């Protein structure tokens, strides 16, 4: 079970949270100008890397807010969690 730091509430156990997928995927500003392939990429294509992953979480059984996290998908270790309005933290060196 993961221990996750909500930027507002602090460290809480994983069952309080819901994972919400890859982070920083922006909805197209001009939807009408998008091709079908653009929509497919926005809706469905994901990086799914083995390594550092920027992702969204929601503290559903807590403050209810969304935030971002930088987690390693090989070890499940978190490097950082950050609010949507905060700058993206760097990927750890080693």
């Amino acid at each position, binding site marked *: 079970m993961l221990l996750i730091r909500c930027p507002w509430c602090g460290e809480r156990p994983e069952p309080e949270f819901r*994972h919400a997928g890859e982070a920083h995927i922006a909805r197209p500003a001009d939807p009408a100008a998008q091709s*079908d392939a653009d929509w497919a990429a926005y809706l*469905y294509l994901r990086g*799914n890397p*083995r390594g550092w992953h920027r992702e969204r979480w929601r503290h559903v059984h807590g403050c209810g807010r969304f935030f971002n996290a930088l987690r390693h*998908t090989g070890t499940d270790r978190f490097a950082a969690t950050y609010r949507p309005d905060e700058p993206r933290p760097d990927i750890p060196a080693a």
Partner: protein
Amino acid sequence: MTTRFGLLSLAREALRGHRGWAPQWRSPERPQPAYDVVIVGGGGHGLATAYYLAKEHRHVGRIAVLEKGWIGGGNTGRNTTIIRSNYLFPESAALYDHAVRLWDGLSRELDYNVMFSPRGVMMLAHSVHDEQVFRRHVHANRLDGVDNEWLTPAQAKAFCPPLDIACARYPVLGAALQRRGGVARHDAVAWGYARAASALGVDIIQECEVTGIARDPRGGAVTGLETTKGTVRCPRIGVVAAGSTSLLMAMAGLRMPLESFPLQALVSEPVKPVFPCVVMSNTVHAYISQSDKGELVIGAGTDGYNSYSQAGGVQVLSHALEAVCELFPTFRRMRMLRSWGGIVDTTPDRSPIIGTTPVPGLFVNCGWGTGGFKATPGSGHVFAATIATGAPHPIAAPFALERFTTGRLIDEAAAAAVAH
């Protein structure tokens, strides 16, 4: 070099103290410098693909299967082996039923006992919503020519005596039963296909990880592979790598509609035969059957976040066990022997992806997620035809990668929330 199995060979070996059995497939240390088709991934689906390529499409030429670990060591050897074909949409019913028809007779075809046991798969309905969805399934399946029947709670109890239909926490309002569904021996499926493919000339190279995909700088077509055992030239590559598919496709510059999640299972101490069928309960994420060794085989759900850790959270296991203990009170005092996880590749519509890709010469068979073991023979069969002809087999066609662009999804997730 493969011995035919039978009463005679068994008797002969019994008298000789079983010292005469030879390895059942060739396992060359290194790949050849070039092949006509390379299958990446030596799980059941990859090995079945190689077998049907060699058997039904001889003209494709030299075939190899490259496996980073040992064959069957991925999800094939980690799954709870539930086999059924009662999916909702006609496209899925056609695909999974093609597989069920091949399971029947597979041991004979491969001359290897895959222990296919169509003992019936029963899905429990715990709510009015479940009941309505399952009844709709039963009707849809019948229209597609796939057997599936509705059981009353009493009939469900008669079919599976350990079931507590009056369970207060998860009452049983009825069940959908596919009698042709069942289980098979997972390792035997990988080994049987490996043996049969090897006998037809397929090279199976283990401990050979693919680390790069080479492409022609002009047309973009694939020209070969980099591996931990050297460079291999080949004009056609079939990626069949389950949870690792995104990583391999990224080597060819493609982003996939896939996310990889840990999925766990566990087995109990072995006991005498107590459990005659397979029972699934999607609402509470628990699946149970009894292996021929006597262990109760129990499947749990996926973790809530993408990961390659192959471990999974303990709370996911205990959730499945809580449900099993409620539904089958007689198992409350059983001890669990071990648990493990596999990495499953899930698509947005929970249906697989089989077919060509935007990269010429590169084919993919993935996205089977939590439920692809049941499809192993059919998947290999239609994927082999797709690779050999360069065009999708009719049963595979609806499962093309393009469906995420055209919007023609096959949304089995929304249809049933069914996992295995």
